[in-house]
């Protein structure tokens, strides 16, 4: 069994390294850009952003799919991404502070959404995953609409709103936001590690909440922990990059096809695969069209054929 998994891990690591190398080598400046330290700084930051965003989104997607017992769940199911987008856009539009503080507003928006969703989903002191999903989805719709409203009222071009909803890795960093991001990246790694430690509980919970209870899993605690971690992680990511879709939904499935559904393999595998695929998509998005395509378009275009290939090779 273990020997069969090795090619899978090797493949993912290769993908990751390849994508990272491409990301550093290619850009509007081309290979020549590697000579300039300013350009390399930009590219390194972009690389770090891509790794964190891709890894986090995939890990959160995998965890939520397990917790919610639903292969169609993704990081945005629980409404947090929309809340983050709303927080960020409100900060930019209303705030007298510099727009560089959008990430802080985004994170705040994510936290508020998380508390709201959790509070609304609580019935008689208990939170079932069904309730979470229902409330989360509704909130998602609500906040997405509010983002559009804020953008319109704030006289932003709708193009900006589109980019925020479709994701990008082109965030400009000032000294302050670079440090903010550093802190966020560290927290992100810790958060993913925490989710990894819940692997067995997630395995069991994916087979039914009640059954999990009878097997000794503290479903309320696990639900709360995964929910809070997911919200915080997604909030952090979205506030820097906007909502990048597809990664959180499909990458975990790709990894499951390689390693089976056990979370102790799916979670780390998803981090690697998510980072790699996102970086690859970003390289494509930046270099194919001069202005750069919205990232979510490319992640879908890159991910789907890959997914279909894997799917068919297993049938």
């Amino acid at each position, binding site marked *: 069994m273990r020997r069969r998994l090795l090619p899978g891990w090797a493949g993912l690591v290769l993908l990751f390294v390849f994508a990272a190398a491409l990301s550093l080598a290619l850009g509007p400046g081309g290979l020549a850009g590697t000579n300039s330290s*300013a350009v390399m700084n930009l*590219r390194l930051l972009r690389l770090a952003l891509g790794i964190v965003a891709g890894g986090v989104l995939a890990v959160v997607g995998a965890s939520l799919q397990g917790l919610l017992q639903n292969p169609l769940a993704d990081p945005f199911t629980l409404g947090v991404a929309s809340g983050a987008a709303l927080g960020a856009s409100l900060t930019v539009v209303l705030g007298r502070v*510099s727009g560089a503080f959008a990430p802080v507003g985004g994170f705040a928006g994510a936290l508020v959404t998380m508390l709201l969703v959790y509070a609304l989903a609580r019935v008689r002191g208990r939170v079932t995953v069904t309730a979470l999903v229902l409330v989360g989805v509704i909130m998602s719709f609500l906040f997405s609409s509010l983002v559009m409203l804020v953008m319109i009222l704030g006289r932003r071009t709708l193009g*900006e709103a589109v980019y925020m909803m479709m994701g990008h890795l*082109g965030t*400009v960093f000032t000294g302050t936001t670079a440090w903010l991001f550093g802190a966020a990246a560290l927290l992100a790694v810790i958060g993913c590690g925490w989710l990894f430690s819940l692997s067995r509980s997630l395995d069991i919970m994916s087979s039914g909440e009640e059954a999990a209870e009878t097997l000794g899993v503290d479903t309320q605690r696990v639900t709360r922990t995964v929910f809070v971690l997911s919200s915080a992680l997604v909030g952090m990511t979205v506030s820097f990059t906007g909502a990048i879709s597809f990664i959180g939904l499909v990458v975990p499935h790709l990894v499951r096809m390689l390693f089976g559904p056990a979370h102790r393999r799916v979670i780390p595998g998803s981090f690697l695969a998510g980072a790699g695929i996102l970086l690859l998509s970003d390289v494509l998005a930046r270099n194919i069209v001069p202005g750069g395509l919205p990232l979510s378009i490319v992640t879908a275009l890159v991910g789907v054929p890959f997914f279909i290939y894997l799917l068919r090779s297993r049938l």
Partner: protein
Amino acid sequence: MRLTRFVLTIAAVMVAGCQKQPAANPGLRVVSLVPSVTEIIYAVGAGKALVGNTNQCDFPEAAKCVYKVGDFMSPDLERIVALRPGLVLLTLPVHRQLLDKLTEMRIAVYVSRPADIKAVFHEIDTLSRLLGRKASGESLVADLQRRLDSVPVSSDTPRVYVEISGTPLMTAGGGTFINELLSRAGGRNVFASSVQEYPVVDPEAVLEADPEVILLLHPDMSASDVAGRVGWGNISAVRQRRVYDRMDEDLLFRPGPRIVDGVVLLASFLHPGH
């Protein structure tokens, strides 16, 4: 709804102690849904014909007193119709649906969509004739043209990066108004070759282009923020402290009579000392 109207009317009347002026052309009642067109109307002296405009029509001062039919992005059809307008001035694609409805109701409509400065002058001309102020229109255009021509042509055309938005970085492409204003002012838009109107750009691309002047056309960030961006320290514009912020965007984005003021403003940034 009624209370809002009431409050708005009172507020409008109280502002600048203005009063409604009697209609110059008693037959023609005009509603303007476009701030730049509102400016044109007043610039050719036809302000008395204006019976309604939008919340965003804020220049000149008198425009603020006029009855508001709603937001530029979503004016209220009911209010427009209630004014019994003889002519409604709007733009596309924003007012697409409104245009269809007004046409259905057989209300005369004029679509304003000037693509460049020449078209703006043409529009001033057309509108002034529609409003019976042909002479004013002609002299206004002549005056503007003269001022435009007197913008000094310099031998050097600095590379300019125009930033429309900071998150993500968005600039203006070649087909935009701002682009034309820039070239008239004696500058070169580094992203003029972009096909998209307002493309999102990679920060690295800005570094590559190494602009000598940076114009921030959004209130999110200040010049010092831009200078503080990672990797941007070596851009010519940053090094020479030629990053300009907090300018009156209306001068640059409204295709109306103040467009030439916009050119003059840009020229002052691009060639200080002239």
